[in-house]
């Protein structure tokens, strides 16, 4: 598919927009529709598109499989870490009110971090699953 000029050029134009849109959806999840899952899936889909058009080797150079696999765990640890930190500061597990100087700000901070963790995990899982399927086909 590398030879198809139209696909290549259009993907090069669109993939940055896709990734940017994913980041927008992630951080504006509070004010409009969106949030961690949607952003993670869209981010992952951007990378999958890159892998489909430019080949698996190019995808492997941009997103090293070992790094992406460790990101899967990192997102989940971030989420659980927020919970543990709120326990350490005196509240219950995942009680965001104690994270900042007043409860509403604490909620904002907590939601932001938690959605970030979810988004990272979902994006990394999508990229990893695609890579596993494609690598299996390559090696046959």
């Amino acid at each position: 598919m590398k030879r198809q000029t139209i696909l290549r050029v259009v993907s090069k134009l669109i993939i940055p927009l896709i990734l940017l849109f994913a980041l927008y959806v992630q951080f504006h999840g509070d004010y409009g529709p969106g949030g961690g899952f949607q952003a993670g899936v869209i981010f992952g889909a951007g990378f999958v598109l890159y892998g489909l058009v430019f080949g698996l080797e190019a995808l492997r150079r941009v997103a090293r499989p070992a790094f992406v696999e460790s990101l899967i765990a990192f997102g989940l640890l971030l989420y659980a870490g927020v919970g543990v930190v709120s326990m350490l500061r005196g509240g219950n597990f995942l009680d965001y009110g104690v994270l900042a100087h007043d409860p509403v700000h604490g909620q904002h901070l907590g939601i932001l971090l938690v959605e970030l963790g979810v988004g990272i995990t979902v994006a990394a899982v999508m990229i990893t699953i695609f890579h596993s399927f494609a690598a299996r086909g390559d090696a046959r």
Partner: protein
Amino acid sequence: MSTILGLYNYWVVIVLMMTGFYIVISRGNLIKKVIGLNIFQTSVFLLYISMGKVRGGTAPILDGGAETYSNPLPSVLILTAIVVGVATTAVALALIVRIKEAYDTVEEDEIRELDGAP
């Protein structure tokens, strides 16, 4: 008549559910079964979301001008369910790939014969 109009959306969803169910139990090809399961899942999501709508409401995002909001709770549940659904589908498809490599077929009856089941 108003009963039919009021319940019409549930019946459409039930038809979709039954189509998905039919695909799962009547087709032998494993990939077709996974697709049927996917159709079933999506129709269940539609059922819940259609239950959450309030006539005259808007999307549950707090906005200065809106009077009534549709129910946010089904959205929350279904959001979770959708991503869990894709995760399950991915694992199912990975299993199918391995089955194909081990048995060289994805038809259920051929796999049964190869396994030697009675």
